[in-house]
């Protein structure tokens, strides 16, 4: 039987590929046969990801600040010129924080929406252009979070942006269904990554133990999320769109 999860022959863009889940998603996609385009700001870290991938020579690396819309357009044009039309987009770039309401300024709101929402929406806009996306259709993944579904004291900023992505997923799924471009979100619980390890709650044992206890299966690993991305990018999920795949070790089961 042909592997239904194969990504052979697919060109897939992964943003935030310099670290954490984005990095692992790039690696997993390469192992499933995809040609991957890695995007993030840090070239050194991108090259590190590249070195972890299967057949590194077949992938492309672009150092880009996703706030730079003009830069984004130029890069997408360049990518399509080199790889041909695109089949997948994984918007893994994102930031997190723990900040009580009294410290949430408009500047903070803008910073979070720009990084977590605007860049994913603009990348999707460029990806879905007729000149860029495969005529067979495509798959776009937004990285939401369990914090897009449930709350936690001090996580308002993060929750706002992650919830926005879940909402966007549904309308975009409908808007692009006729073109066979699917939109889905993944919502991880706490995964062991540099981002979560830098979080306030990871810096002391008591908070960390509390967070671990909230996940019946313990904390996740990046590969737990990248495997789901492989599924959503592959033809195995051809009938899946507008969904939010929750991968949280049981965090939201309570």
């Amino acid at each position, binding site marked *: 039987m042909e592997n239904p999860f194969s990504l052979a022959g697919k060109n897939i863009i992964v943003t935030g590929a310099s670290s954490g889940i984005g990095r692992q998603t790039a690696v997993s996609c390469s192992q499933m046969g995809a040609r991957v385009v890695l995007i993030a700001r840090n070239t050194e870290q991108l090259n590190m990801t590249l070195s972890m991938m299967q057949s590194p020579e077949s992938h492309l690396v672009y150092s880009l600040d996703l706030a730079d819309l003009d830069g984004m357009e130029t890069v997408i044009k360049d990518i399509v010129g080199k790889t041909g039309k695109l089949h997948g987009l994984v918007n893994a770039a994102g930031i997190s*924080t723990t*900040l009580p309401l*009294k*410290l949430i300024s408009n500047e903070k709101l803008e910073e979070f929406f720009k990084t977590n929402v605007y860049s994913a929406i603009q990348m999707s806009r460029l990806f879905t252009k007729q000149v860029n996306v495969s005529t067979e259709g495509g798959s776009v993944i937004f990285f939401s979070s369990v914090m897009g579904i449930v709350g936690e*004291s*001090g996580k308002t900023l993060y929750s706002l942006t992650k919830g926005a992505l879940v909402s966007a997923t549904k309308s975009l799924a409908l808007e692009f269904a006729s073109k066979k471009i699917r939109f889905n979100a993944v919502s991880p619980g706490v995964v062991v990554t540099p981002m979560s390890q830098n979080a*306030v709650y990871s*810096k*002391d044992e008591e*908070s960390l133990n509390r967070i671990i206890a909230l996940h019946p299966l313990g904390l996740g690993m990046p590969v737990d999320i990248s495997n789901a991305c492989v599924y959503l990018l592959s033809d195995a999920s051809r009938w899946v769109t507008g969904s939010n795949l929750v991968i949280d070790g049981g965090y939201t089961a309570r």
Partner: protein
Amino acid sequence: MEAKFLEQFTELLERETPVTLEDVFREYDNWDSLAYLSVISFVDEEYGIVIPREEFGKMKTIKDIITFIAANS
């Protein structure tokens, strides 16, 4: 740094009178877990320093917090 810090803390902890270096912050009538979270987040945002809970547990006065920040920045 001290004057600005005291001003920001007065605002952060919603004190009606300006906080002073000698204030024992846990004796504030509105001190609670959210106030704790606010202080930790504020210091992280403003100074890029995460105060470990154990260290914070040893602090008694506003001056202790400032001293910790100064020693770790």
